[in-house]
């Protein structure tokens, strides 16, 4: 939003006050302040982090665009640039860091790895993209993206912020009435376990108990992980022949409600509850005022 835009408004401004009074919407003003003071978290994961540092350093200097300074603590950061390969071991602290960031907060996936697993996707310790765990706002392709590309992605994020509105409370979580819930932190078991998949895991375990484990599963020798008893590994070697492991897919899309519908429902309930609380507070305040 530039000065000219600020001064051109549909509301009449007396001629003598022109250029002294600007009329704008609250959302716009709010977003303008926010988009120009986005502080990224000082947080590098892999090779992409080096290009991120180069972007912050003398030649490219992202401070010019309002990403003033990188903060080492998540509590002072607005933007998490996921700059590199997300591993199963590292995603645990990453989710914690994200939970520690104050709202409003944004996530930028920098590079092929953070966007979708990248060159190391097949690896047994690699998460196929940050969006498996956190809501990502902007994806920047490249391996590594050049500093120019990263700057472009950051500017794209600013544009995204421009479009957000306080009036429409459901637009972004932090403008809504309910408080945000932290993202559940994954657990390192025999493999990584996402608490949001607990239901699916339970269903899978039950299914495995009824019929024989799906084709291609085999027993692993001597398993002593924290999940006691039998642990089988799906090598998908023979399963390769079958077009798609129907069994596995059915957990993502259980007949009837999709898992996200459930989440939606919970969120809706929480919203209603918060609204009710708000209404209650208002009536109480009114009652107090009346007494006085």
């Amino acid at each position: 939003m530039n000065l000219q835009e600020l001064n051109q408004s549909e509301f009449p401004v007396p001629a003598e006050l022109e250029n002294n009074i600007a009329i704008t919407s609250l959302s716009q003003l709010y977003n303008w302040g926010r988009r120009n003071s986005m502080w990224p978290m000082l947080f590098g994961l892999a090779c992409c982090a080096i290009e991120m540092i180069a972007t912050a350093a003398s030649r490219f200097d992202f401070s010019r665009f309002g990403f003033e300074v990188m903060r080492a603590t998540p509590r002072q950061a607005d933007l998490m640039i996921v700059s590199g390969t997300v591993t199963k071991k590292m995603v645990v602290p990453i989710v914690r860091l994200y939970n520690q960031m104050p709202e409003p907060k944004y996530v930028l996936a920098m590079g092929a790895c953070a966007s979708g697993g990248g060159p190391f996707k097949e690896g047994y310790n690699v998460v196929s993209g940050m969006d498996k765990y956190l809501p990502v706002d902007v994806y920047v392709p490249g391996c590594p993206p050049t500093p120019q590309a990263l700057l472009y992605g950051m500017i794209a994020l600013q544009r995204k912020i421009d479009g957000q509105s306080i009036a429409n409370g459901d637009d972004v979580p932090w403008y809504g009435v309910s408080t945000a819930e932290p993202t559940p932190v994954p657990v390192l078991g025999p493999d990584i376990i996402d608490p949001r998949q607990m239901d699916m895991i339970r269903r899978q375990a039950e299914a495995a108990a009824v019929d024989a484990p799906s084709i291609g599963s085999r027993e692993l020798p001597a398993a002593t992980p924290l999940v006691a008893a039998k642990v089988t590994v799906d090598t998908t070697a023979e399963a390769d022949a079958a077009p798609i492991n129907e069994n596995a897919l059915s957990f993502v899309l259980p007949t009837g409600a999709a898992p996200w519908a459930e989440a939606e429902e919970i969120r809706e309930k929480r919203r209603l509850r918060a609204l009710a609380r708000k209404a209650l507070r208002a009536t109480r305040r009114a009652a107090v005022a009346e007494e006085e």
Partner: protein
Amino acid sequence: MDQAALAPERQLDAISVEDAITHLNSEYADEVQLDEREGYGGIIVDSKRLVDIARVIRDDLGFDYLSSATAVDYLGEGDHLEMVYHAYRTTGGGALVFKARTDRDNAVIPSLVSIWRGSDFQEREAWDLMGIRFPGHPNLKRILMWEGFQGHPLRKDWREAYYEEEQKPFDSRWPGGHVHRAEEKNVFGKNVTYPPDIDLGRLMDTSEAAVYQSLGLGVDVERIMDKDGFETDELVVNMGPHHPSTHGVFRMVLTVDGETVTSLEPVMGYLHRNHEKIGERNTYLHNIPFTDRLDYISSMGNNHGYVLAVEQLMSLGRKYNPPTYRCEALRVMMVELSRIVNHLWAIGFWLNDIGAFFTPVLYFVQERERILDFFEAVAGSRMMCNYMRFGGLFGDLPERLKSVSNLANDRVRDYNTMQFLTEMINERIPRTIDDLERLLTQNEILIERSVGVGVLTREDAINYSAAGPLLRGSGVDYDIRRADPYSIYPELDFDVAVENEGDMYARYRVRVSELRESVRILKQILPRLEATAGESIWADGKPGAYAPRVPHGEAYGRVENGKGELGYYVVSAGGRGGSSNPWRYHVRAPSFINLTPMGIMSRGYKVADIVGILGSIDIVLGETDR
């Protein structure tokens, strides 16, 4: 002096590698066999006597430096696991390769930590990824994966979640060209199915407990009496994996008494990207861009080590032409430029750690950007150059340097290449180094902070397999470019930088001298490039095969990279015609092994010194965790 008058050991530790092998073979006929597989070398030691014979190798034969220790799974080729050790003399020369075998089912090989402390992390890695137990190891637990992870992933019969086929190119995609996603078949992205009686309510992470256990920390906090008789607690401080000074996702768990560090345990694996597993599925050529992503500050050096290892193997076959002179000169130039980038970066970030926050880095990055622009114009990418090929290079220098992205702040829009190089090597880089020295070398604060801090003695440096500036800063005159030369280094004139103090300041001084030596080498490369202008970079004038077949055998290619000795152990297990994919692909990463002495280097210093000590080792996490 009369040769015969010398003690027998004195003679033994000067005999050639071949003689050493013959000596061991005749002296210990029952325990030591020659490795006579096609393309292999060295000896196979009976694992029951491994520790004794290793002691003989170290003490009597003088191979005091254990460069690499790694495991190979010979599934289907004898069905055993094999530990492979490469020992060198710090006086120079080739490797004594010795191996020990064990069963796949109950894999046990005695630990060599009592002989070479440098095998500590490497044995832990072999346990983690290959499942070999090492009786005698003081702290045998997983190092890259977390405690509780299912299976040992580098075993040949262990398959990752997105497994498709043993080797690339996958039939499903090539030559048919179908897009096929393994993750659609395995929606969870993991290959564990859970038992029916799984109790999700009680699920908890045990990997953290294992970290603290090894520090002797459990539920009880140790009580210490200080000198005045007050009871104090030892405090545990976690630094990382998210910490601005750990240069990535590295973590240190320290116990402190007041501000003094009493013990330190490096915890890593937060960037373990399964480089080796993926590398064993890839074709040989496929791996070159992956090596870029090891030490991502100096990708050219990584390429070099890998192509040397594969070229060693290829030279066993018939159809192999060694690289031309121009190609070698270009390789050396690129590698030395990366060394400059690496050292500037290392010094800059070390200064960050000891308090000169970001200002020096900004100046060094400027010079680095110029070199990266050159890389981008020649190889197509700033950081991930993917430049070297077996027997050649991706391409020759272009006549003129043209910017790839052509932006307003690009510094090489259109420039004569040789002129650019001449200016950079003769003027710009030396000027930067002069500036650096003028501002820093005699700087009082810098000296106060770094002299006498983080000391590593000469003996420890060798025993802990330290490499690069860490080793040379402790007074060991060992630089692979001189000690076991490769490429055209023998004919180049340069000195090995050595400092004797073994502290942070000594490492800084080594890096600065190496910057100067690199410039000296580059100045000798320029006339060589001019003399060979127009010559091909390929021996037979055309690029090498896209999918070369590599003869049966093993090879260990190592180079002196910015961070230290970077080695690649490659095994090709092809039949008659050779193989198109490596059977085993192991990276001996200096950043990983240089962390082994981190514990002893930091004991007794203050918490604030720890970040500086880590910075002075100069690690990069892509290589540490691989």
